């Protein structure tokens, strides 16, 4: 082993993707995607099914070769540098990849033996709530326990970078929070985290950088605050069938209002909701004898932005 393989480019970004292209036959799975993910930061890749998320991550992991563009992981080519990268990069696959008959304790013990300075398996089992199931065969663990074991396997070698493909898919709220604590801990410890997810709240809560991809291209990238912007909305509940056109006419220019679903009203503005808008809405309600219930002001969520940018149609 050359001394450089462990220490090569210590300041290189965790992942740097430039103009990545990947085709399967005539289908273009990734179409000129560029993305830069830092160390000590959580980068969330969001996108509808089939957007190219998993393909992109698997190219970074060295499982697939790019057809075009360049990918650097910790400064190295993920295929040519695979031997040097494998100890330094932790991977959690969507499909698990853990033998059905294996027991959590023995599985982590074996993985620990692959690494020079691993975490103690017992510590991971305890902190992830798996200590009581340490000797239960993998196939008899609950879905949430299986996911947490998979997560433990990804971090046991104390990696500099981890790829987590939908780490909280199918988890109950408690297990999700345990996973979020660990991911936040990775970030604090200076580990780069690349995360794909379908949960917008997860990205909003954890990510330093959110990259929305669709049709193999980067649609937009930014911090959650940049993406959700300042646009706001005002929601209330009242009897169904109010005259929303009349309401819009009473509001400042550029406002929109709609009823969706019946009895639930939302007023949207491109700027922050201000006192004048609130006054205008309540004045209109008073004038028309409408009692607005559950009246509240919200900012746009990442989910609103995502649906707006990706068209919102369901794909599988």
């Amino acid at each position: 082993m050359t001394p450089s393989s462990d220490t090569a480019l210590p300041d290189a970004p965790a992942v740097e993707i430039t103009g990545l292209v990947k085709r399967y036959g005539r289908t273009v799975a990734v179409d000129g995607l560029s993305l830069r993910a830092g160390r000590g930061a959580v980068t969330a890749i969001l996108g509808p099914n089939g957007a190219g998320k998993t393909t992109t991550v698997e190219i970074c992991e060295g499982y697939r070769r790019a057809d075009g563009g360049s990918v650097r992981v910790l400064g190295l080519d993920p295929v040519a540098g695979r031997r040097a990268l494998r100890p330094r990069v932790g991977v959690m696959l969507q499909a698990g990849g853990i033998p059905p008959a294996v027991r959590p304790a023995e599985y982590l013990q074996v993985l620990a033996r692959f690494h020079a300075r691993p975490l103690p398996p017992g510590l991971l089992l305890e902190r992830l709530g798996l200590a009581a199931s340490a000797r239960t065969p993998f196939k008899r663990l609950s879905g949430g326990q299986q996911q947490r074991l998979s997560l433990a396997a990804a971090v046991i070698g104390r990696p500099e970078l981890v790829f987590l493909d939908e780490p909280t898919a199918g988890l109950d709220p408690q297990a999700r929070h345990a996973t979020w604590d660990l991911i936040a801990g990775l970030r604090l410890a200076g580990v780069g985290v690349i995360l794909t997810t379908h949960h917008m709240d997860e990205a909003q809560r954890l990510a330093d950088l959110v990259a929305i991809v669709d049709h193999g291209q980067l649609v937009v990238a930014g911090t959650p605050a940049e993406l959700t912007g300042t646009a706001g909305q005002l929601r209330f509940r009242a009897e169904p069938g109010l005259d929303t056109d009349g309401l819009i006419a009473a509001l400042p220019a550029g406002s929109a209002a709609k009823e969706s679903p019946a009895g639930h009203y939302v007023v949207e503005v491109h700027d922050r909701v201000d006192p004048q808008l609130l006054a205008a809405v309540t004045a209109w309600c008073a004038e028309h004898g409408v009692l607005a219930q559950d009246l509240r002001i919200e900012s746009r969520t990442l989910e609103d932005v995502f649906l707006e940018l990706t068209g919102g149609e369901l794909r599988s």
Partner: protein
Amino acid sequence: MSEATAARADDPEAAWAQVLRPAAGAAPLPRMIAAQAWLEARLLVRNGEQLLLTLLIPVLLLVAFSLDKSLIRGTGVNFLVPGIIALAVMSTAFTSQAIATGFERRYGVLKRLGATPLPRGGLIGAKSLTVVGVEVLQAAIIIVAGLGLGWRPHATPAAAAWVVVLILAGTAAFSGLALLMAGTLRAEATLAAANLVYLLLLGVGGIIFPLSRFPAGWQPVLLALPSGALSDGLRSVLAHSSGFPARDLLVLACWAVAGIALAARTFRWD
């Protein structure tokens, strides 16, 4: 640094951050291979069907056909033990390994291992270690059972050496075929085909039925199969005290080279 990240009981994120500080590095290759072989052996011992196939069936066949001489005339325990050792090698290196590897591929286990520091060569090494370990156990059981049944082999040091060489060559030949099958077929197809080939070679591999009972035209073909070559080689050394089993070793070496080369070219890891 340690004060800055000092964990507080009420701050799980900081507590994680303290233990998750990067300290990456691969373990030495022998340690990785030993750990993986240990895991493979444990999983194998936990699999009832595999134990039946590798440990129980060979011994049952040996005992049944040794005790009841009317089943196949003219084949005593001295004929049977070398054939049963060949069967044991075939069951472990070929059938058991093909099925286990096929399902590992299906469950994404091989893909997941590809993301650990264990290189592919190390994984093959671990699998081979496990196979040889099981074979040693099988051989011990078969030899003890055979001696109990009145087996009197030509047990010279040279014979023992040739037996070891034949078993290793047979293991390489069957392993190549097992990985060729497991790396290209679906797991269910591998399961069916590996069992079918096992039964077929049990019948025509010179395991229990002497190849001399087959039509003369068949015999060169059956001796050119890895099963026929291995059982014939073991039998010539242990029962007939022949020397260097050159032809049988050459057959096994050819199967090993061809099988491993083909498997290396065609193996799909996911």
